[in-house]
């Protein structure tokens, strides 16, 4: 899928607008899922997906295939836009606390709730690493590029996040109980 995305990006850089449509169809889902799992805000996730492609359209000439896959490049744009937006919101909420939006929870799926809660309970520096590694199959190196941190930091944070998730979800406990 990602090789196809790289080919489409090259075609788009050469002026093929249909390639952009196909690239959007291919990558809007993964980007939305990443932002949604991080923020749990549907409207924010939709806005970030759109802003990511607007930014790509404005600066398509800046992408270089040699530096990495287009999917990683788009995750990087989306992550930066999302962090900026969330920081701005945090500032506004400190002045106007009633602007807090309702946390949309699905109460009918208890198990899913717990994994959602466990991921949400991870800190802002650990959460994107788990999401990009587990759900989006990015390598340590690609995650390091997306988040602009050293590869070693990615590894140590990933191990810490896994330990935290196991604590939150009670992995060993449940396994021994089921046995």
């Amino acid at each position, binding site marked *: 899928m990602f090789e196809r995305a790289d080919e489409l990006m090259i075609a788009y850089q050469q002026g093929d607008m249909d390639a952009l449509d196909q690239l959007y169809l291919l990558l809007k889902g993964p980007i939305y899922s990443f932002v*949604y799992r991080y923020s749990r805000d549907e409207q924010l996730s939709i806005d970030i997906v759109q802003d990511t492609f607007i930014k790509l359209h404005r600066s398509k000439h800046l992408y270089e295939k040699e530096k990495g896959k287009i999917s990683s490049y788009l995750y990087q744009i989306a992550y930066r836009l999302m962090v900026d937006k969330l920081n701005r919101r945090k500032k506004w909420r400190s002045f106007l606390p*009633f602007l807090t939006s309702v946390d949309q929870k699905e109460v009918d799926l208890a198990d899913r709730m717990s994994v959602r809660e466990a991921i949400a309970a991870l800190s802002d520096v650990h959460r994107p690493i788990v999401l990009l590694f587990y759900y989006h199959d990015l390598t340590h190196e690609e995650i390091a590029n997306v988040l602009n941190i050293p590869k070693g930091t990615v590894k140590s944070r990933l191990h810490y996040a896994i330990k935290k998730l196991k604590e939150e979800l009670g*992995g060993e406990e449940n396994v021994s109980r089921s046995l």
Partner: protein
Amino acid sequence: MSQDPFKNERFLQSKLDEYHVNVPDIPLYLRKKRWERFINYLASPAKNPMEPMVSTINGIMLVKAGPVVCGTVLSVLPVLIFV
């Protein structure tokens, strides 16, 4: 992947796999539609600022009686000042 720390975490994997995201239909725009976003923002669910107050009986009384007391005071005040 050779460096996969999830490899031996079967329980964790099964839990993480339960977290599915439904992707809505998102149209491709190449220019920001600020007005549309503002409307969406206004339409999005928000927390009720009175919620902490209505959870106690005193709070409910305050929310109900507060406007009545304020209205009474404001209507009586001109009478007291000018008469």
